[in-house]
């Protein structure tokens, strides 16, 4: 009799399971931005009209250590930055700060605390030892959504991702929710790079693991839940996937390499042809990477822009590179920081770049010697022109050879 009852109950549970699966959304293509063809001639001709990059600093919170800044454009065209700050990376006093950049006055507002460790642990119902890596995104309902990393035990390899949302462009935030992304006590999933959108308005969040394996994954996010995920790389060699979308079904992911000393220290690449459902490893980008974060963006002109430490080791040089869809090679278009000429003990660290584009404006932030966050505002036309100049210079040197 009990057996019949158990089987009937199992049947009921299975039917409910099927109904639950039936409501699961199908995988959707990538949302792509409209490209505006850039005429190199016109960019040459309008040299005088091109705005030069402007540099400033994110507001000082008095914290000894700051790191992992990120950006998002607000609905009114302003820019909101997030970063973590505390006595040192991973300390219990680390908080996630935010500030707004007013494009009209070109100034940053007062920094605010978005979340601290105590608030996070009370809302998440579990002990939290440290916070890090805030990454903002625009959710389907128009709200701001912030993803960040928390650690309960151990180092960053023990991280999990949490998320919270804001209906007022970041002035107030909901209670954070935990994303479950790993079957082994939800250990070791981190986020660093910008989210992408699918045509069904759901988010694709590039995440990575750095415990047993060091690999990238694309998390499909619906509100505050992971509803699917796909592996972007495998093994122990590539983290922090940066996704640049080529078309509704096609995209490339560029990684921070974490390979052993004897292996090639270049930027690993994966490619998808089915909107992120499966990824295949490609040849590395021939750009040196010292196990350091990279960032990038696709401009409306179709120009791909990367910011990276183009060194085999160390983070004391940061450059901006670009590649046109028709060109095979990446060109260095601007050296943002370079301490290579200094003695090793005098060199500073320039790391964790994060770039966003909003129409003709391109904004970059990065950690400056772990003490400050530098912000540089570029004009897309200036980048296009710098790329054309770099290409012409490269062609001339090729001819000279």
């Amino acid at each position, binding site marked *: 009799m*009990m*057996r019949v*009852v*158990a*089987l009937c*109950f*199992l049947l*009921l*549970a*299975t039917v*409910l*399971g*099927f*109904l*639950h*699966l039936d409501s*699961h959304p199908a995988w959707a293509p990538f949302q792509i931005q409209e490209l505006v063809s850039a005429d190199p001639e016109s960019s040459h001709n309008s040299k005088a009209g091109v705005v030069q990059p402007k540099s400033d600093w994110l507001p000082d919170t008095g914290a000894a250590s700051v790191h992992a800044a990120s950006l998002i454009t607000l609905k009114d065209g302003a820019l909101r930055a997030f970063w973590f700050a505390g006595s040192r990376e991973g300390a219990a006093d680390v908080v996630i700060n935010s500030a707004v950049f007013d494009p009209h006055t070109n100034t940053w507002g007062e920094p605010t605390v978005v979340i601290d460790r*105590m608030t996070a*642990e*009370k809302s*998440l*119902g*579990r*002990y*939290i*030892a440290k916070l890090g890596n805030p990454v903002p995104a625009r959710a389907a309902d128009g709200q701001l959504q912030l993803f960040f990393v928390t650690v*309960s*035990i151990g180092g960053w390899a023990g991280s999990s991702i949490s998320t919270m949302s804001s209906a007022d462009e970041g002035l107030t935030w909901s*209670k954070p*929710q*935990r*994303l*479950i992304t*790993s*079957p*082994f*006590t*939800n*250990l070791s999933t981190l986020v660093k790079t910008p989210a992408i959108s699918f045509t069904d308005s759901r988010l694709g969040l590039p995440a990575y*693991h750095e*415990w*047993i*394996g*060091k*690999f990238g*994954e694309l998390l499909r996010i619906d509100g*505050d*839940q*992971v*509803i*699917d*995920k*796909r*592996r972007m*790389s*495998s*093994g*122990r060699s590539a983290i922090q996937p940066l996704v640049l979308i080529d078309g509704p079904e096609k995209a490339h992911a560029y990684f921070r390499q974490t390979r052993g000393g004897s292996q090639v220290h270049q930027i690993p690449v994966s490619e998808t042809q089915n909107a992120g459902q*499966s*990824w295949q490893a490609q040849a590395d980008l021939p750009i040196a990477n010292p196990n350091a974060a990279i960032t990038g963006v696709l401009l409306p002109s179709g120009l791909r822009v990367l910011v990276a430490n183009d060194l085999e080791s160390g983070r004391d040089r940061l450059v901006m590179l670009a590649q046109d869809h028709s060109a095979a090679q990446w060109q260095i278009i601007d050296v943002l920081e370079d301490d290579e000429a200094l003695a090793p003990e005098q060199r500073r660290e320039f790391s964790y770049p994060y770039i966003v584009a909003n129409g003709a404006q391109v904004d970059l932030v990065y950690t400056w010697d772990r003490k400050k966050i530098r912000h540089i505002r570029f004009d897309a036309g200036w980048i296009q022109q710098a790329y054309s100049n770099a290409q012409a210079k490269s062609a001339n040197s090729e001819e000279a050879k």
Partner: protein
Amino acid sequence: MKNIMQTIALLEMSITCAALIVWAIQRNFEAQIPVAARMILALLLANLFYWPLGMFMQLPLAAYIRGVTGDLSVVTLLLLWSSVLLDRVDPRNTEAHFVPIGFKVSIVVIAFGFYPFALGVGMFDPYGWGYASIGFLMVVSIFAAILAIANWTKGALIIALAILAWSIHWHESANLWDYLLDPFLMIWALFACIGAIRRKRRERLQSGFLFRAG
């Protein structure tokens, strides 16, 4: 709803910690505590884990443990609670705790096949099945039906409850695997299998002495 989910998760962890202490008491003192007394003891202990104790601790004890372990699978919770708090068998008699060896072996085999791939070996990720695979749900249901047919109805009911919990999004996870399996279930099943093998070997050795030709 999200607040209720956190409350439920902390309650579950508190009951689990209480059940483990009750189990340890029974094992250490080699005493079989009556079911009602076990329930009352578990209730008292669960309160100790659920409410913040103050002093230097801002959170309940259960929240600190949950920070390390995450949420346990529904299968682990129900197996542990039912075995420790409801079973009327003598806790000293491990043979009497009827969880079929076939189930334990299955857990070990599945976990050893699952975790390496789910944690990054190669591009194949079986954890992804847990989000929206009809095939995976079918396999789990058939596995539970086999348990019922093999006369372990408790196992079938536990898996059915795990599927039910997943379909109503009982925990934070939207992945069926998280309702069925966790590393602690794997470790328990592994030690239980090793224990069973050693017991069998000991019995074989003893029977060998008895029937050895003189």
